[in-house]
């Protein structure tokens, strides 16, 4: 009996050895948003490169929400185990909203005390921040020229309102549309720049000899407001420009009914959906308009990095997560994250190409992947830091409806009208709130811009805020 047991035990031990769990570490669980532009994260070129470079195995948890704050609330209220959360491609969270989670101890801080990894952006980080786009189909239909001055713009908008440029027999045209969600989408902010340099992102403040000065107290600013108020009264400036959400503006502009004559935005892709060449072909950028006294300014912005990733404090793999995210911020990783596989999808330029901004090129794209369904990178999801010389030096992909190229051309036309650098004051929230409300009220007629009494009352309030 004993003798028969020996081979059985040997066999069992061999089988048991064969079935023993592998000693490989658990995969790092990474939450990433669902994206139409990423075919399969598990087989993605960039992901595979990251795994090879870090020695980590990544397991992806798909996020279906678009609101990052909602997602983190749900995540931290649950027992779900996630080692890193990546943001991007429509799934976002403002830095301010993250602070609540950091204060509650939900986020793992970095060595420098920051509680998130930044995405330094997928496009040029500084330059013109508001562009006017005009419906050139309507210009053509009505035999009108691109406006160069505020007066010419008013004439064009009047024609848009009264001459049925979309040809449907209905007075459904919105000559100049806007949205309340962002200064860049508020046409009045652009028009004011034809009177005086107007930077709402910096509370319309400039620094002069260390002293804060505001354009909002100048007569030219008042004159600009009066011009906008007149447009509003005539029905030329969108009556809902201070109520409409950005998504609603996008729906309007993308409507096949062809309803919008002009709008403003930072990037055309913020309003016109990619993959919509007919709508993109409908709009042309307009260089900054010259005002009645010759002022012609372009708004200058420096785009802040966005939240690229966080590490939950309860993750048991924080060091591994940090290794992954640090790697993603390296130049090599960031170039893959932006342009795909080197040598296949892009290569460094030999200098014989022209970049989308008109300078000598630094990166030549061979397969243009951005915002297309592809499996080479994560389309901007997660932290990344591509140097400006590459973002500005990339070549055009040859697609006429490519938003990056359209934006680059528009921004190039604004560059001669940018202010000198180094004159910007820090944003003052209380002042911004006061000015934003005043601009809206004067334009929509809640306050009378022609009334000296109301203007003086406004100036008093402004002065008090400036003196604080």
């Amino acid at each position, binding site marked *: 009996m004993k003798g028969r047991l020996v081979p059985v035990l040997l066999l069992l031990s061999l089988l048991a050895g064969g079935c023993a769990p592998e000693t490989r570490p658990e995969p790092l669980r990474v939450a990433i948003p669902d994206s139409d532009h990423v075919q399969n994260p598990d087989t993605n070129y960039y992901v595979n490169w990251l795994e090879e470079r870090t020695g980590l195995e990544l397991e992806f948890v798909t996020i279906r929400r678009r609101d990052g704050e909602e997602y983190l609330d749900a995540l931290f209220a649950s027992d779900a185990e996630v080692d890193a959360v990546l943001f991007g491609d429509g799934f976002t969270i403002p830095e301010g909203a993250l602070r609540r989670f950091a204060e509650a101890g939900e986020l793992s801080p970095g060595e420098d005390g920051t509680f998130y990894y930044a995405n330094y952006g997928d496009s040029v980080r500084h330059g013109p921040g508001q562009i006017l786009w005009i419906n050139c189909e309507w210009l053509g239909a009505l*035999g009108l020229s691109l406006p160069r001055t505020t007066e010419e713009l008013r004439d064009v908008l009047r024609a848009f309102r009264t001459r049925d440029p979309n040809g449907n027999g209905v007075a459904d045209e919105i000559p100049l549309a806007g949205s309340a969600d962002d200064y860049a989408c508020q046409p009045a902010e652009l028009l004011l720049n034809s009177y005086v340099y107007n930077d709402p992102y910096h509370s319309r403040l400039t620094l002069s000899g260390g002293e804060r000065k505001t354009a909002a107290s100048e007569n030219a600013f008042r004159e600009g407001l009066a011009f906008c108020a007149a447009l509003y009264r005539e029905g030329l400036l969108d009556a809902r420009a201070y109520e409409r959400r950005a998504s609603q503006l996008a729906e309007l502009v993308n409507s096949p009914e062809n309803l919008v004559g002009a709008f403003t935005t930072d990037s055309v892709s913020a309003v016109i959906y990619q993959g919509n060449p*007919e709508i993109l072909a409908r709009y042309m950028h307009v260089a900054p308009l010259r005002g009645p006294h010759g002022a012609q300014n372009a708004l200058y912005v420096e785009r802040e990095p966005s939240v690229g990733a966080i590490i939950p404090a309860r993750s048991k793999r924080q060091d591994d997560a940090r290794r992954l995210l640090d790697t993603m911020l390296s130049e090599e990783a960031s170039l893959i994250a932006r342009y795909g596989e080197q040598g296949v999808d892009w290569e460094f330029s030999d200098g*014989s190409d022209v970049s989308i*901004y008109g300078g000598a090129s630094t990166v030549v794209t061979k397969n243009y992947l951005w915002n297309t369904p592809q499996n080479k990178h994560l389309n901007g999801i997660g932290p990344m830091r591509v140097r400006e010389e590459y973002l500005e030096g990339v070549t055009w992909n040859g697609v*006429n409806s490519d938003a990056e190229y359209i934006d680059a051309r528009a921004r190039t036309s604004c560059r001669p009208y940018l202010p000198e650098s180094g004159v910007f004051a820090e944003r003052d929230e209380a002042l911004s709130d006061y000015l934003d409300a005043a601009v809206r009220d004067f334009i929509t007629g809640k306050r009378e811009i022609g009334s000296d009494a109301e203007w003086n009352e406004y100036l008093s309030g402004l002065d008090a805020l400036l003196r604080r």
Partner: protein
Amino acid sequence: MERISKRLGCALAALTLLLCAGCAGTASGTEGADAPAETARRAETPEELYARALEEDVLVVYTVSTRVTAVKESFEAAYPGLCVEVRDLRSPDLIDAVEKNHAEGLAACDVVLCNDNSGDFKERLVDTGVVVPYLPEDIAPHMKEGLSGGVLPFVYEAELLFYDGGGFDACPIDNLWALTEERWRGRVYMPNPLRSFSTYAFCGATFEHCGELEEAYRDYAGRELSVPEGSSAAAVFWERAAKNIVFTNSSDEVAEALGNGDAAFGVMVSSKLRLRGVGYALEPVWRLEPFAGCRTSCAAMLAADARNVNCAKLFLRFLLGEADGAGAGGEPFRTPGTWSARDDAADGTDVPLTEIDLIVPDQERLIARRQELERFWTEVLKENTAGRS
């Protein structure tokens, strides 16, 4: 509402197409369907094509012209139930995409509309059978040049010198060599010839006209042109002119620079003359010693891998203006700076092609000299774009 329904229909059709593509893998064409090359010569009425096209999916058009979006609109209105998807690409990228699709067996496009002047289109897509011509029997007698080397041109244009009409009452030069003068530094705009086929065709064609360039130089400078050993009059001209030229990505950028006064001169495709309609003061140079540009054309071809052969043929008929040349499909290409490829349809330009100082690129020569020309331009571009920001 009707329009919304149609769009919805298009979207559903596109979805169906995607689903079908997903189910069927990536095989080219459809078993039992007409092969484009075999049916391209058949006489078919528009009615027959329309009936068969209704059974097909969304037509995919690869084009180098944004004006095709207007053709799409009128085509979908003329033939309810048919949907067109337009992909607008620059010529080199279009050829790369069509070639790649074909190599991978992807039936990704049905109709190809491309500038055919540099020789690339002919060499890589026509001579290899990746695209085939479709010239309906009732339209063929009206085409000025018919099938030229297996390519069907549907509109003629020119790569032409323009000047800023806002800055000058009349063209300030009468000889091409004047563009090499230092006073025009940074004031001459031209697309990168290695990225724009029509510009490449013009630049390349000048190398076949060196005698005329030398003669023009004699008239301009009053002395013989000194041409270094191993060089040519064309090379000397471009090396000198390039110091003044701002190279761009596209003709649109040239038109903008002329429109806003940044450029005094611009070399660009003549069809951008239509942008005068939005107020750009673009003035074409019709007369210049020894030439003001080169004639170019756009070809309309069927993709050999087309899935939607009948719809593609119907679209091409429509684009050519149908039997009498007056159809709405040709209308977007009857704009200033274009000339009809048909003898029974009006040109978009008042000045006939014969009254413009143009040279005509020889595609075979451009193909034969490609390496030499590319080397030359790579060096010229490196030298003249480096350090620009």
